[in-house]
């Protein structure tokens, strides 16, 4: 884990114990068969997404054909939709969309949550803390879908409206967790020692405190990843999500009007793909949490 290296040269931090948290976690995780299986499934999806992004497969997701509502066949593994598009290609290409949304939202909201949470925690009780806490309270009190809809509408021209909206609401959970952890950490001896030898405050936060919250950030990022993929589906259904591309959400939204007439292929395959990824990611996230958080009761 390269993220552990910044702490390695801290004068007073117990480097041995630090390194062993991650190696112990790795050991524990590799022995968790369910977690490893889930990781394998997630990686498989990752390969599908990367292949779609690299142009290896799923490229003809938009291609029309005369065969509308075709049943599954050798040409169209999952059949075709209302305008003759191949559902298999669309499902594959949607994997790429899901990973794109998941990664962007998970990484951005983790960074925002880590920085603001750390600032609030380190300066707890000061005006910085007050402002961050107020902002979290405000963002949490706005009904989620309404807020997302408002931001997505505000940025209608941009394909990233949905992403911005999700980051703006999802970072608060990470922020609260990091704030709590930082408040706990800043009273510990290694921080006191760093302060005593005159290390600047920003360096203390960046090099001594934040790296000690990485286990929370990692788990939280996987949770946000799943939340983002699931929200994308709802937003696409409401017409606020993915544009000029295809996603499982769009496929299910299309299917919503088709299932009453007996056309199930779109619905079934988008649901199966979506469920597989979300379930695997949830199990992976649980295993990660078990491995990284020894205090957690299971």
């Amino acid at each position, binding site marked *: 884990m390269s993220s552990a290296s910044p702490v390695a040269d801290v004068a007073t931090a117990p480097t041995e114990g630090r390194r062993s948290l991650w190696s112990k976690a790795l050991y524990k995780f590799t022995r968790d068969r369910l977690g490893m299986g889930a990781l394998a499934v997630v990686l498989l999806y990752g390969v599908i997404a990367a292949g779609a992004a690299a142009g290896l497969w799923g490229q003809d997701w938009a291609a029309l054909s005369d065969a509308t509502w075709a049943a599954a066949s050798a040409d169209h593994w999952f059949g075709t939709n209302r305008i003759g598009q191949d559902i298999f290609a669309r499902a594959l290409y949607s994997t790429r969309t899901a990973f794109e949304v998941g990664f962007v939202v998970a990484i951005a909201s983790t960074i925002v949550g880590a920085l603001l949470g750390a600032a609030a925690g380190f300066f707890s009780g000061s005006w910085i803390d007050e402002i961050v806490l107020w902002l979290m309270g405000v*963002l949490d009190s*706005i009904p989620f*879908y*309404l807020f997302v809809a408002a931001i997505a*509408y505000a940025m209608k021209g941009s394909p990233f409206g949905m992403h911005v909206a999700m980051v703006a609401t999802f970072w608060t959970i990470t922020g609260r967790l990091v704030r709590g952890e930082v408040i706990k950490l800043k009273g510990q001896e290694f921080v006191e020692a760093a302060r005593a030898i005159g290390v600047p405050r920003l360096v203390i936060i960046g090099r001594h405190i934040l790296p000690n919250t990485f286990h929370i950030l990692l788990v939280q990022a996987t949770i946000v990843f799943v939340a983002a993929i699931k929200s994308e589906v709802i937003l696409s259904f409401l017409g606020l999500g993915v544009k000029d591309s295809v996603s499982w959400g769009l496929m299910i939204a299309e*299917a919503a009007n088709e*299932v009453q007439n007996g056309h199930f292929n779109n619905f079934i395959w988008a649901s199966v793909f979506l469920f597989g990824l979300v379930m695997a990611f*949830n199990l992976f996230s649980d295993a990660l949490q078990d491995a990284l958080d020894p205090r957690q009761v299971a």
Partner: protein
Amino acid sequence: MELLQYALRKLLAGIPLVLGVTFISFLLMVYFGPDQTYELLGKNPTPEQIEQVRKELGYDKPFAARYGDYLREIVTLDFGYSNKTGQRVSDVLARTVPISLALVAPGFVLGNMLGIALALLAAYHRGGWVDKLIMGGAVFGMSISFLIVVIACQIIFCSSYGLDLFPVRGWRMDTLGDYARYVTVPTIATVFVALGYNTRFYRAVIVEEMTRDHVRTAMAYGTPPARLLYRNILKNSLIPIITRIMFSIPLVVISGSLIIESYFGIPGVGKVTFDAITSGDQPVLKAVVGLTAVLFVLTLLVTDILYRAVDPRVTLK
């Protein structure tokens, strides 16, 4: 008296929250939301007509003045008339909020009660196959998108491809029979989705309480399981349970369930609000956002008082 003082202090402390929520939302509505001017005008309007409509909508005033008006509306609870339909906003809310409440209440109550029951069962058999079965089911439930559940429920219960027992769309609650017919399928979907998250959360809370010394002592004294679960464990884990339930209430009351309402064509407050966002009906939006924020502050207060009621050690400070 002490309680009253506490309540007043708490309400005052809630003002920054209301200001923040309304300010951010109003900013979004005014600068980024849809402009209604041309919706209300006919073809080829003259500049005077445009001016007239903008004035009626209040678009010509500076932002600060409009925000001031908004705050006054929250204090007096009078939000004027909808831009789009011309109805009184208070009438719109009085019509739609009860529908949304009637729609989500059964699912909300059942989802939490079943969640607690399953969590108690899982925690009691912690590590055993009952626990694994329930928690596996919870992860399964958490992994299915709400939208898929709603569509699947509709196929299974409402369409000729399934059981075809209930109406596909719409809403009526004149008689109890009507209400039961329309509310059943949305309730099944809501419970299914909420159950996974609820069970997991409640199980974690209950397991934490179960590992305490007083529970071990009670067990050693041979307390029967039902009594142990209810008196020693459930009662002591009420604080996080109350927190979770209470904080979902403001969102449930005001925003209802947008997905269920739009999918089943139910005229609830979630649908009305969503339409207001996409059409730029600011009076309705202002009312919904403002009331949610106020409700949040009230919830914070009631939650604190409830803490006191379930745990005498908690002091209101």
